[in-house]
């Protein structure tokens, strides 16, 4: 590191970073223009009319509606133009690509838990193939955090009690910072890590070399969800069809649900989560409050259950997965190793040992 070698601009490594930067520079241009305009105006007037000069001071004007309209109108138009431009980029940015590669994120004081769809888990590090759109589904286990990826110009809060999403498409191989940008308590500034973007083949190699050992025995996230489902005996009430004990969970993701209180809600991750940890808050029409509350499940378990429920097709195709091996209970949560500092040093490390994960 060289003290004098200082960047003025952060690296841009995602698909919409360029669009963001263009907007940023345009606003910068306008800002510089107006700042200079006002400063020059003030300086010129202050010098010309300073006390003691013989400048012409006759016929001063005290107001001019024309001028007022001008300097209300021009900034207004520029502001509206910027607004439209920016809002369009924002809506695009927040319009989630349903086919993107899923990454599940659980934020907790003070580390990031990340999990790939195939079950590979990482802490404070994330490996991604270049060019692949990524969608993070995020939730916090405690306070509010913010997943901030400056090189991707991407940020979103990670909130307890509800899912949030963040998407981006990395475009350049390299290692980029992953930061928490919401004050979350004592070790907030240490809740940091790296995103390693790799060429597809390198990524495959990395998976090969490290993926397996980082993968829990349960296999993919969906399989892990299935294990929780069986473990907790959800199937005793939720069979393939609607029955007296519980409604069918097949094909419900994205559907509308009529509730006992007359409301209709869309079934999404948040709805599923709430139905599991606090079933009585939303009772499906035609059913009683018989489902016990599973509030002791971890966020990782619930994410897995959601993925599993989402994977359930129609009632016909039961059991989409064979359960692998012996019934080991899913270890979807890593024991709290919250303050390991190994990967918070300046140089990004590319691999992680099993110890850091488990």
């Amino acid at each position: 590191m060289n003290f004098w070698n200082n960047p003025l601009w952060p690296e841009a490594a995602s698909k919409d970073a360029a669009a963001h930067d263009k907007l940023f520079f345009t606003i910068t241009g306008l800002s510089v223009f107006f700042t200079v305009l006002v400063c020059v105006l003030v300086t010129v007037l202050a010098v010309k009319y300073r006390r003691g000069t013989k400048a012409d001071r006759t016929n001063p004007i005290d107001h001019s509606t024309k001028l007022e309209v001008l300097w209300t109108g021009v900034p207004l138009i520029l502001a509206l133009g910027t607004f439209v431009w920016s809002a369009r980029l924002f809506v695009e940015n927040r319009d989630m690509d349903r086919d993107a590669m899923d990454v599940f994120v659980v934020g907790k004081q003070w580390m990031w838990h990340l999990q790939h769809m195939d079950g590979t888990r990482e802490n404070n590090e994330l490996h991604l193939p270049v060019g692949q759109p990524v969608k993070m589904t995020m939730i916090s286990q405690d306070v509010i955090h913010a997943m901030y990826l400056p090189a991707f110009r991407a940020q979103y809060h990670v909130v307890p009690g509800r899912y949030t999403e963040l998407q981006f498409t990395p475009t350049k191989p390299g290692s980029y910072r992953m930061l928490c940008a919401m004050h979350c308590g004592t070790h907030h500034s240490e809740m940091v890590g790296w995103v390693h973007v790799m060429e597809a083949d390198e990524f495959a190699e990395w998976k090969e070399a490290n993926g397996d050992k980082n993968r829990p025995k349960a296999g993919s996230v969906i399989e892990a969800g299935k294990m929780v489902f069986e473990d907790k005996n959800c199937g005793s009430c939720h069979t393939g069809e609607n029955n007296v004990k519980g409604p069918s969970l097949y094909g419900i993701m994205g559907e509308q649900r009529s509730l006992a209180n007359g409301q209709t809600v869309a079934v999404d991750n948040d709805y599923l989560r709430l139905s599991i940890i606090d079933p009585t808050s939303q009772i499906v029409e035609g059913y009683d409050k018989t489902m016990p509350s599973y509030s002791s499940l971890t966020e990782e378990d619930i994410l897995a259950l959601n993925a599993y429920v989402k994977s359930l097709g129609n009632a016909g195709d039961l059991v989409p997965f064979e359960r692998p091996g012996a019934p080991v209970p899913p270890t979807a949560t890593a024991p709290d190793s919250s303050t390991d500092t190994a990967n918070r040093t300046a140089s990004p490390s590319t691999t992680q040992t099993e110890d850091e994960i488990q």
Partner: protein
Amino acid sequence: MSAAAEQETVQEKNYLNADHTLRSWLTTTDHKRIAILYLIGVTFFFILGGLSAALIRLELTSPTGWMLSNEMFNKTFSAHGIFMVFFFMIPAIPAVLGNFLLPLMIGARDLAFPRLNLVSWYLYAVGGTLVLIAMMMGGVDAGWTFYTPLSSIYSETQISLTLVGIFLNGFSSIVTGVNFIATIHKMRAPGMTWFRLPLFVWAHYATSLIMILGTPVVAMALLLVVLERSLGVGIYSPELGGDPVLFQHLFWFYSHPAVYIMILPAMGVQSELIACFSKRKIFGYHFVAFSSLAIAVLGFLVWGHHMFISSQSVYLSVIFSLLSFLVAIPSAVKTFNWSVSLYKGSISFQTPMIYALSFIGLFVIGGITGMFLASIRTDIHLTGTYFIVAHFHYVMVGGTVTAFMGGLHFWWPKISGRLYSEFWGRISALLVFVGFNLTFFPQFILGVLGMPRRYHMYGIAPEWLFYNVLSTAGSTVLGLGFFLPMIYLTHSYFKGRKSTQNPWNAKGLEWEKAASPPITVNFTEKILVTEDAYNYDAISDAAQALRTMEKRGQLAVVDDEDAWWDENSEDKS
């Protein structure tokens, strides 16, 4: 007795020396004395806030920290924000300058409810004391924003006590607001019509509206945090069935307007300074007056811009973005009006004017960087970073504190009856300007580079060190700039040359009709207002300057210290 002689004897007895006992100060209902009590309070908290800022800046000269623990660092920036925002900035201009000047400016004897005014100071003092006690018992670490559920469940620090202190302080500002509004409606002297009011009064009217409408909301929001902490009532914590983002809505519903509580009075001061030191009417008086009201109203509709990425719906964010762009316009209008007010003026560069000119430059940068944040796509990248820190310091320090300093210097002869050293005044005004830019401009770059705020360590990005060191270097200059006035103003209070009634040749009842310092009942005569505000005459002022120059055999500069005070000081002997 001739009028002049009467004037002199009256001046002997003024609000300051009317009574000397401590008791007479602590039980006073004189708005001027209460203003002094507030001045002592806000200066005290400004010093505490400044010391904690110095600690933050020093700590950040190393990427991995070198003297504070994580806990201490978090407590330090929390203390800094709490002192500065709630106990310095919000009361600074309204409760000190506003309290002192409103009655004088509108030709009244006092505020509408003098005793309530004293109550409001006691609320402030008790609130401040509670917060100090909380700090001594260990402090708080959740930041001045108290985001839940960190503040309501997870933090193990003195949150509840601090919040009670802030709650009381909130009531102090509500009470002040009610008092100001009643005063402005009911106590104007005959002839002081709404459109003859100095813009300072308009600005305080708008500010008072915000204080009354906004403060109760935040007071309740904070009280609910206390309830959740102490009784486990589920309001914000999802574990208890609450909604963590609800707090942000309630908090910013007040705290965004609160940034206007901080900046609107500053704009009022700014108008007075520009008018007096360019000896001109403020250009577009009506536009400037109404833009204050527009800001007060629009300011209530933009709170969602603090929540663009906290799971607020996309459409809501888009609407808040639009409204945020709109709220910037009235501020831009004001800036142009101040700038053009210099046209055909007779401009002198006394200390208050240097502050006023700095204000324009700094406020433009502060306001315009708000555009990057109103723009939602760019806000995604900048929110939560040092860009925010730089932005709000440009507005709150570059704007409000600069105006407060300018106003304090401008009205100092009125408040204390004494003159301060113009030389040191100008030096420190320049130090503040230079130091400020050096401290906070690098923080914009840090923010763009992605440095999150409230970071104790940044070992992950050692290349941020350079800008942090720059910022710390700047803050020492800035600190000096704020330290000097404390010295020379205090000195002038006891030892300064006596001021005349109107050393700046300023317009306004407080200068033209009230002695320096004013007597307890403000005026000796019945006030009848017959002219508009800022009825300055730049032409004759410029002519007078030329005459003085001739007399003194000078070629150009007339407003050097001696010439100025020769013209205006009382003990010329």
